């Protein structure tokens, strides 16, 4: 069950990312204000989604239980280096990119995902 829902989400989110990219390229008022950083962040997100989907739908199916074990080791400050999850190369890429994304959050415009919650409030006060 959760596998089906997860799979569907993976497809939908990929479609969304592609549509966002298409909109950015096709709508002039968006394209003309787009800089390298905007494309890079979109590519990064797309890459994460694609690697995620490869793991799920790809030929060597990746067992979710392995990630659970991996994060479990991390949580108790164990040595994660010999966790079996790390033997899967796609997982390594996927995980690495996700870490880059998290690293980028505070430095990039992606802050907007938080800002949307309170900018209107803040502006009204000033």
């Amino acid at each position: 069950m959760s596998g089906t829902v997860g799979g569907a989400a993976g497809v939908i989110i990929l479609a969304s990312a592609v549509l966002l990219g298409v909109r950015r390229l096709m709508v002039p008022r968006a394209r003309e204000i787009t800089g390298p950083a905007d494309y890079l962040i979109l590519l990064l997100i797309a890459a994460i989604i694609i690697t995620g989907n490869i793991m799920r739908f790809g030929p060597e199916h990746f067992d979710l239980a392995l990630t659970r074990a991996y994060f479990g080791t991390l949580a108790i400050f164990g040595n994660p280096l010999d966790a079996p999850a790390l033997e899967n190369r796609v997982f390594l890429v996927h995980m690495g990119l996700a870490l880059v994304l998290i690293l980028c959050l505070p430095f990039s415009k992606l802050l907007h995902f938080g800002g949307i919650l309170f900018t209107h409030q803040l502006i009204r006060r000033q």
Partner: protein
Amino acid sequence: MSDNDVKQDVKQTVIGAIKAIRNGPRAMRLYLEICAKCGTCATACPVYYGRAERRYNPAERTDIIRRLYRRYCTLSGRLFGPLADAKDLDPAELEEWRKIFYECTGCRRCALFCPFGIDHSVITRKGRAILDKLGLTPETMKKVVDISLRTGNTDGAGEAAFRAAIEFLEEEMEEEHGVPIKIPIDRVGAEYFYVPPSGDMLVNPEATMGIAKVFHVLGMADHWTMSSKFFDGANYGLFTGNDEHMKTDNRAYVEETKRRKARVMLMGECGHAHRIMKMMMEKSRWWGDLPFEITNCMQWTAEHIQAGRLELDKSKNPQPVTYHDPCNFGRSCGITEEPRIILQASCADFREMYPNRAENWCCGGGGLSAMDDIHQFRMEISGRKKLEQILATGATNVATACSNCKHQLTQLMEYHQQQIEVGGVHDMLSRAILVGGKAAERKEYT
């Protein structure tokens, strides 16, 4: 100083101002950090509507500041430069800034539609403030600020001109109604101190006549006053980004209100003047506690109309009339119903234009109205949407409550050869109000 030193100096000033943003208001930093570059603001902007070019895209204009902010204030910008959309300052671009930052009317319509409420007018004003520090404010604007600080009004009119104008208006009103209607000057202890834009004294004085008639009819002719030195609420410091000028100009009016010992500062039909007084000066307590309150003349008149204290003869204004919400009243101060109450009571055929109120499109002038050097830009680009909107109503008369809007709209109608009269809200009232049971003998106006 050699040429190089000057360049270095300019660079220091600009970078210093950019770095200072870090210690400034939180909202400004968010505006710079979270723009998603979605382009929604462009659909809301009258300038971009007039011409869909990159240069006129709000997010592109403010990206000039954003790129520098990233370069000098963020780690990613310093490390990754262009990859993080950061850019070094190139002083050669300042000449272009002088044009670009004066191609935004400051209407704040973008902020209403941006999912994050990003207000490009605030960032644009920052750009202008930097120019002003460098002495690079466009000459036309500089001139108005200088005149205003020297004489207390943006038209540079002296006391004699003011008194002559008042005398003329009193004669005019006596002719219209057959009874003397006073405009008191420089009284101390009058309850209301009326602060119009000087345009409503010297260019479109009917609005001031309307106010005088309201006081007269209410039997309050002794309860108000104007000042022979301070009769212009307009404040160009708001437009050039120079806070010091804005506050100096503002302080003079607050002091004058105190000298007049007035209980109410009655702001005239001038959007930005009202906004500075009410939403900025009073709210942020620039000068501490005030011994008076601030009200707009439209709120005041509308209240008396609703209370049934004024009688009006609508048939005096039979032509179709529409109302243009000045951005500063409609969007920034929430004064939208009062002008409609006055107009509906004064005109037989009042028509809305769409969209209206807070969502109304800017006249295309705003703080730029005084700039004759960009006349063509205002007529063909920034004013285009407004023209279409007005024509769609079929009205032959546009009433609005702002000197800048009036100036821009009058020019717009002339430029596009439309027989549409532009005037104030109290102008329409002045023609319809009954004084001693009689409306003004209709003469040929305009």
